[in-house]
């Protein structure tokens, strides 16, 4: 049965995005909010709003009981989780369904299965999707390590089987290096964890982060091409593109087909993203994890395909089949999104939850700004720093960067410190223009003072 009354269990720009999508489908919207978010834009836009708890997310946007109760009290028939917060929490899905409502996303079991890295890796392998080559379980002796590394291929990363984090990680570039490092790594693992077992994995130097957008209705699954999201700081994406111009057509086809195979094998419902590492040196891609929700950077995919991903996920969660077939989904041009955060790039990205003064927003063909701001709005300090996303679409990557630079110059948010200067500097950088980047590129670029050199 189609969804008629949608409860939005999120905040910020994604709540605004969901309300726009739902209202465009004639769906009644009910916005959840914390005490600190009573004045946010999504509350003003929604048909109804309901306070679910205090400012602290643990007592509001992460409070399963309060959210489900509020949704029931408002006679919602479905809950959209957005991203972050409870979007990938299987217990939330179960609570929503136990209360007789639909969850806009995959089943609790799918979230459990794809949210766990080990079971997701197994599901990927079973669907024929390449994963980062690694040892089958523990490696006990240096001889084992050498034999395993010969199969995996060098360079290999040596990790303590029992360890977590970066402790004891070594990278061997050859059998000679591995023969020397394996006994050291074993001794260190034994000392640190009381367990000398090792785990080996192919080390991918300077990989790119490439991901594939998929949509599923439980029976059928399609891909909406890939995104390139290598520009990251502290593992947070700051700049995203669709598509990945580094891929040749044959590789793109194999990559996207692998994502569809995995989505179909788990009977996926809703919008999802499969994340891969891509090794430009060998033209290989490896599945790393799946996000079972809409993502921050979904608009770049919408720009090149013309799809509305949020409407599509609402439709399939209401029990409809996908409105498009794979053949209907084509791509045109190139899109770039940059994240406008309330942070001061000149001061180590210190958060800046100020009050919004005069706003000047860029407009024009192929320019989109998804945000939750209005003049006079006081940004609360309790949540993440994302203010909005500036998205541009143009026939080529070079034209998209030029359009981005113009749009950034036209964007002004008085009263705030934002990451606009970071993106202006990136849009003028020779490496960025040449697409000569990878996941380890941005942080050294910042450390080298490339930002402070700009006015």
């Amino acid at each position: 049965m189609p969804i008629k009354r949608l409860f939005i269990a999120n905040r910020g720009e994604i709540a605004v995005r969901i309300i726009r999508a739902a209202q465009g489908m004639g769906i009644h919207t009910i916005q959840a909010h914390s005490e600190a978010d009573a004045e946010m834009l999504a509350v003003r836009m929604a048909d109804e709003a309901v306070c679910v708890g205090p400012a602290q997310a643990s007592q509001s946007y992460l409070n399963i009981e309060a959210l489900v109760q509020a949704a029931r009290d408002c006679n919602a028939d479905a809950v959209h989780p957005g991203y972050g917060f409870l979007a990938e929490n299987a217990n939330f899905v179960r609570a929503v369904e136990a209360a007789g409502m639909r969850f806009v996303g995959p089943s609790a079991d799918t979230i459990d299965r794809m949210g766990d890295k080990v079971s997701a890796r197994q599901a990927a392998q079973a669907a024929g999707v390449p994963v980062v080559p690694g040892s089958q379980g523990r490696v006990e002796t240096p001889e084992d390590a050498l034999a395993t590394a010969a199969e995996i291929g060098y360079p290999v990363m040596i990790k303590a089987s029992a360890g977590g984090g970066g402790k004891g990680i070594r990278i061997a570039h050859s059998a000679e290096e591995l023969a020397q490092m394996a006994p050291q790594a074993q001794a260190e693992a034994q000392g640190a964890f009381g367990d000398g077992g090792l785990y080996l994995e192919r080390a991918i130097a300077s990989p790119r982060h490439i991901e594939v957008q998929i949509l599923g209705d439980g029976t059928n699954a399609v891909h909406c091409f890939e995104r390139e999201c290598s520009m990251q700081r502290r593992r947070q994406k700051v700049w995203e593109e669709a598509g990945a111009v580094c891929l040749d057509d044959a590789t793109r086809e194999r990559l996207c087909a692998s994502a569809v195979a995995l989505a179909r094998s788990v009977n996926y419902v809703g919008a999802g993203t499969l994340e891969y590492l891509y090794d430009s040196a060998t033209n290989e891609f490896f599945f790393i994890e799946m996000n079972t929700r809409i993502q921050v950077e979904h608009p770049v995919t919408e720009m090149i395909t013309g799809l509305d991903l949020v409407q599509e996920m609402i439709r399939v969660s209401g029990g409809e089949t996908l409105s498009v077939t794979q053949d209907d989904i084509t791509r045109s041009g190139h899109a770039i999104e940059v994240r406008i955060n309330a942070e001061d790039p000149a001061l180590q990205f210190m958060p800046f939850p100020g009050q919004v003064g005069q706003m000047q927003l860029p407009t024009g063909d192929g320019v989109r700004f998804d945000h939750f701001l209005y003049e006079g709005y006081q940004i609360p300090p309790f949540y993440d720093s994302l203010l909005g996303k500036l998205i541009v679409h143009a026939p080529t990557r070079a034209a998209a960067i030029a359009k981005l630079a113009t749009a950034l110059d036209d964007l002004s948010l008085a009263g705030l410190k934002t990451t606009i200067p970071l993106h202006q500097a990136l849009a003028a950088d020779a490496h960025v223009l040449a697409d000569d980047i990878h996941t380890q590129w941005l942080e050294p670029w910042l450390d080298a003072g490339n930002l402070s050199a700009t006015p």
Partner: protein
Amino acid sequence: MAEIQSPVPGTFYTQATPDAPVYKVKGDAVAVGDVIGLVEVMKTFIEIKSDVAGTFAGYSVENEAAVTAGQTLAQLDG
């Protein structure tokens, strides 16, 4: 009497983690640069350090309280 104020708005913590001891209790000596608490602003944790020396007199707000920029977090004697 000296006051230590929050440089930013956010959530104040008197301990590094829920299991850790509180940074200071009444009567503790406070040296310049000692951390007396944390303020979480937009998911970033900022250490609140004393820029004067003295004896800790107490926190002015509770653990996990919402604070504004410039709000007094703790007081020192001496």
